[in-house]
C-alpha cells in the first residue's frame, strides 16, 4: 500500500536565494505520529508549509495515498484533509475562541452567523478530542496552552485528517505538554495522522512512532522507528556531531548583590495582582533560576524589572541604582539586558534587517553614531561579527529577520543581549524553540556570564534547565516567591514540584535568609 503522504525530491529555494529544502523525501503512514526534527533552519517548517500549500516547491512532487496532488494554497490543503498549526499562532486576538474556530466556515441561521451554534460546535469538538477550551473567552485573554488547543480544534473543525503541529510544545508547560500528548494520542485513536515538529528529543521518544531527521535542507535519517534509535543517535544525525547534554559548571565564585528587589508588586490593568511582594537578590557570579508553572508571575517579573511595565509598588536596585518605573532605556543603562519571552512582539522587528535589530539598544552610541551621524557600515560590520560569534545563519546581515528560521531569530536576540555586556541578564525562556545545538550554546553562554562574575536571572518553564544551570532556585506560585533553595544534589524535581503547585511553602523567615 502506498504511504498516506509522500513528498518526493522536494526542493525549495526562497526568492532571496536561500535553499531551504534540497531534494527532501518524506513519507508518513496513516494513523501514525511522525516526528520531524532538525536544527534551526534545517527546513522543517518550509517542508510542512509546502505540504500545507503555503509555500510552493521549486521542484518535487506530493502524493496522497499514491495519487499525485498539487497543493496551491491552504484552501486546497484543507479540502484534502490537511491542517496545520503554526509555530507562531495565527488567531484573531479580539475574537472569541468559538468565533476563531468557525472562522470562514461559520454556521449560519438565515443570513446571520449563528454564534450559539458556533459555541455548541466548539464544545462538542472539544469534548470529542479532550481539548479543553472556553468557547466564549476572547483569545487575547487566554493562556498560550489554550490558544494552541484552539488552533488544533480549528483544523479539526475544518475536517483535517492529517494534522501538522509545528513545534507545539515549545510554548507549553510540562503539564500542558502532557495534556497535549494525551489529546494527540486520542486523535490518532480516532484515525487521524499527526506530524509533529519538535526540538525536544525526549518528546520524540515519548510520543512518536517514527522520526525523520533533517539537516541543512536534507534528510539525514528517514522515517526511523523511534524504538530503534536513541536520543543521542538522533542528536548526532541532526547536528552532525556529538552533543553534550550536560553543561560543565565550575564552582561558584559569588560576589556582592548586583540586583536587589524588595517588595515588588504588580497589579495588571484589569486589576489582578500578578506579583505580590516579591523580594530577592541576584549576586554577581550566580544564576538565580526562577521556577514555576507558567502564568504565576514570571513573565511580569521580567517585564517589570526590564522597564517594560511600571511596578505598582516596590523597589529594585541594580548596582545600587534604582531602576523601577524608569523605562527600558534607563534600565538598560543601569546594566540590565533582557531576553524577552514573547520574542516576536518584543524581541525583534520582523521587517527590519538583522543588522538594525542587533543595535536597537546601542544605535545612538559610538561607534554607530558620532556627533549625530549614524554609520550604517559599522552597524553592518557589527552584525556580521555577532552573526559569526553566535552562529546566526542567514543570507546576509541585511536580510529581514522575518526570513530567518525560528531558532535563528532567537539567536539574534541572544546575540544582542549577551553582547551588551550587562551586569544583570534577565533571560526569559532563552532556549525556547531553539534546537539542541543552539540551546547548548545559549546555556553555555549563560554559564559563561556567570563565570565572568555577572548576575543572571533565568526564568524558564523547563525545570530540567533550571536545575542544571541555576546556583539558587526560587519557586513562584501565584505571584509570590514560595521558596528559595540552594541548588544541589538534594534538590529534587518532586520537591520543587510541590512548591510549584502551591502544596508546600517556606516560612517568611526561611525565605528571608536565602534572599
Amino acid at each position: 500500500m502506498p504511504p498516506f503522504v509522500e513528498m518526493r525530491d522536494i526542493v525549495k529555494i526562497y526568492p532571496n536565494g536561500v535553499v531551504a529544502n534540497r531534494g527532501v523525501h518524506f513519507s508518513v503512514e496513516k494513523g501514525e505520529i511522525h516526528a520531524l526534527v532538525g536544527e534551526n533552519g534545517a527546513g522543517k517548517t518550509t517542508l510542512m508549509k509546502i505540504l500545507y500549500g503555503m509555500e510552493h516547491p521549486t521542484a518535487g512532487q506530493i502524493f496522497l495515498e499514491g495519487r499525485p496532488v498539487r497543493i496551491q494554497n491552504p484552501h486546497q490543503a484543507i479540502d484534502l484533509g490537511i491542517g496545520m498549526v503554526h509555530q507562531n499562532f495565527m488567531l484573531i486576538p479580539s475574537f472569541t475562541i468559538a468565533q476563531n474556530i468557525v472562522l470562514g466556515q461559520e454556521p449560519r441561521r438565515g443570513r446571520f452567523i449563528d454564534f450559539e451554534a458556533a459555541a455548541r460546535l466548539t464544545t462538542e469538538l472539544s469534548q470529542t478530542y479532550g481539548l479543553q477550551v472556553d468557547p466564549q473567552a476572547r483569545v487575547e485573554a487566554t493562556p498560550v496552552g489554550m490558544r494552541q488547543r484552539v488552533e488544533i480544534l480549528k483544523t479539526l473543525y475544518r475536517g483535517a485528517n492529517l494534522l501538522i503541529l509545528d513545534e507545539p510544545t515549545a510554548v507549553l508547560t510540562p503539564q500542558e505538554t502532557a495534556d497535549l500528548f494525551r489529546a494527540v494520542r486520542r486523535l490518532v485513536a480516532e484515525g487521524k495522522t499527526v506530524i509533529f515538529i519538535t526540538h525536544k528529543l525526549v518528546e520524540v521518544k515519548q510520543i512518536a512512532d517514527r522520526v525523520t531527521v533533517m539537516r541543512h535542507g536534507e534528510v539525514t535519517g528517514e522515517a526511523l522507528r523511534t524504538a530503534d534509535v536513541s536520543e543521542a543517535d538522533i542528536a548526532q544525525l541532526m547536528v552532525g556531531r556529538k552533543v553534550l547534554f550536560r553543561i560543565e559548571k565550575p564552582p561558584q565564585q559569588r560576589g556582592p548583590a548586583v540586583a536587589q528587589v524588595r517588595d515588588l508588586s504588580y497589579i495588571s490593568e484589569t486589576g489582578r495582582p500578578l506579583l505580590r511582594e516579591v523580594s530577592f537578590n541576584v549576586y554577581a557570579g550566580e544564576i538565580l533560576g526562577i521556577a514555576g508553572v507558567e502564568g504565576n508571575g514570571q513573565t511580569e517579573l521580567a517585564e517589570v524589572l526590564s522597564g517594560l511595565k511600571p511596578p505598582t509598588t516596590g523597589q529594585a536596585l541594580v548596582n545600587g541604582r534604582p531602576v523601577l518605573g524608569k523605562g527600558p532605556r534607563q534600565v538598560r543603562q543601569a546594566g540590565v539586558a533582557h531576553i524577552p519571552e514573547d520574542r516576536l512582539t518584543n524581541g525583534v522587528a520582523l521587517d527590519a534587517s538583522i543588522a538594525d535589530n542587533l543595535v536597537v539598544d546601542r544605535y545612538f552610541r559610538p561607534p554607530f553614531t558620532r556627533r549625530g551621524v549614524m554609520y550604517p557600515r559599522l552597524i553592518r560590520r557589527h552584525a556580521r561579527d555577532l552573526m559569526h560569534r553566535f552562529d546566526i545563519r542567514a543570507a546576509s546581515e541585511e536580510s529581514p529577520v522575518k526570513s530567518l528560521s525560528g531558532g535563528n531569530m532567537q539567536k539574534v536576540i541572544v546575540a544582542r543581549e549577551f553582547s551588551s555586556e550587562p551586569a544583570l541578564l534577565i533571560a526569559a525562556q532563552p532556549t525556547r524553540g531553539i534546537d539542541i545545538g543552539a540551546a547548548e550554546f545559549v546555556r553555555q553562554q549563560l554559564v559563561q556570564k556567570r563565570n565572568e562574575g555577572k548576575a543572571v536571572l533565568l526564568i524558564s518553564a523547563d525545570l530540567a534547565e533550571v536545575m542544571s544551570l541555576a546556583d539558587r532556585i526560587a519557586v513562584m506560585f501565584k505571584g509570590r516567591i514560595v521558596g528559595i533553595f540552594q541548588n544541589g544534589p538534594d534538590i529534587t524535581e518532586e520537591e520543587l514540584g510541590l512548591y510549584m503547585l502551591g502544596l508546600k511553602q517556606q516560612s517568611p523567615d526561611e525565605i528571608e535568609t536565602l534572599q
Partner: protein
Amino acid sequence: MTLSQKQKQYLMEFFRILAVILIALALGFLITLLVSEEPVQAFKELLTGPLPKISWTEAGLKIRGINRFGNWLEDSITLILVGLAVAVVFRAKQFSLGAEGQIYLGALAAGIISLHTSAPAFIHITLALLAAAGAGFVWGLIPGILKAYVNADEIVSTLMLNVIAVQIYRLLLIQWLRNPDYGYIATDFFPETAVLPLVIPGTRVTIALFLTIIAVVATWFLMTRTPLGYEIRVVGDNLKFARYGGINTRRVIALSMAVSGILAGLAGAHLSMGILKQLTLNISFGIGFEGIVVALLARNDPKAVPLAGLFYGYLRTGAQIMERSSDVTREVVLIIQAIIIILITAERVLPLIQQWRMRRKLPQELSADHSEAAHVA
C-alpha cells in the same frame, strides 16, 4: 559583471516597475482606442506632451513647448516635496494625511514674511522659507503630540486640522492680506526680494529645484544616517520592539509627523513664492493627497521619491495636455493613472516573477551550490 544581492533586487524592482508601466500604458491605449476619434494622436500627446520640442532651423537651435516642460518640472517639485513628507510619516506607520493643511500654512507663512517684512533678497527668501518650514513643523507636531500622548487617531486629527488650516488661511487672506483693489481674492504680488529666482527661462522653474534636491538628500540622510531616522524606521516596523529597545516612542511619533510637516510646508512655499508669487484663495488643488501616491510608488524610500515624483508629474502634465489638445477627457486619463498605481502597488507580483525565474534556473544553481543534491532532477 557580478552584482550584489541588493543590486540584483533593485534591478529586479526596476524592471518590474517598468513592465508594470508598460502594461498600464497598453491598457490605457486600449481605453483611448475606445473613446477617441484619433487615438494615436491623443496618446502621443500624453506620452510626449511634457517634453520640449527641439528642432534645427536656419536660425539655429529652436526649442518649443518649453512651458509644458516647465509645467512638468514645477508639478514634480511639489510632488517630490510632498512625497517626501508622506514617506517620512508612513515609514513610521503613522497615517498622517496632514500635508494639505501644512501646504496651506507653509504658503501662508511664506506669504506673510514676503509681504510684511523687507530685507535683501537672500535673507528675505531664507526667512520666508524658514517661516514656511516652521509652520509645517508646528502643524505636524500638533497631531503628532495628540497621537503620541493621548492616542488620538492621526487620520482623523490630520484631516480635521487640514480643514482648520485652510480656514485660517482664508480668514487671514480675506480679512487682512488681500488687496481689495483686485477683482479676485488675492494678495499683492510678492516683492522681487521674496520671489524664488528663476532657473529655466520661459518657465516657472525656480531655485526650488535645487531646494528639492537638497530636501531629497536631507531626507535620505535623516532616514538612513541619523538616530532619529533609525528610530522612525524601528517604530514603523514594530512599536513594541522599539519600546523594548529603549526608544522614546512618543517623541519619535510626534517628531516623525513634525518633520514631515517641514517638507510639506516647503512645498507650500514653492507654490506661493515660486509658482503663484502671491496668495490666492486656492493654491494646492489637493496636491497634498497626491503626495501619498508618490510615496507609495517610492515604497516610502526617499531615494526613490524623485523618480516617482517625476514620473507621476509627467503623467499628470501629459494628461492635462492630452485633455487640452485632443478629444479624450480627463476621466479617461485618471483611469490610466489609477491602473498604473494599482499595478505598481500590488505587492504580489514580484514574488511570482521571482518564483518563475527560480524554477527556470534551478538545476545549475543547485549543483553549483551543493554537490550532494545531485539526485535532484
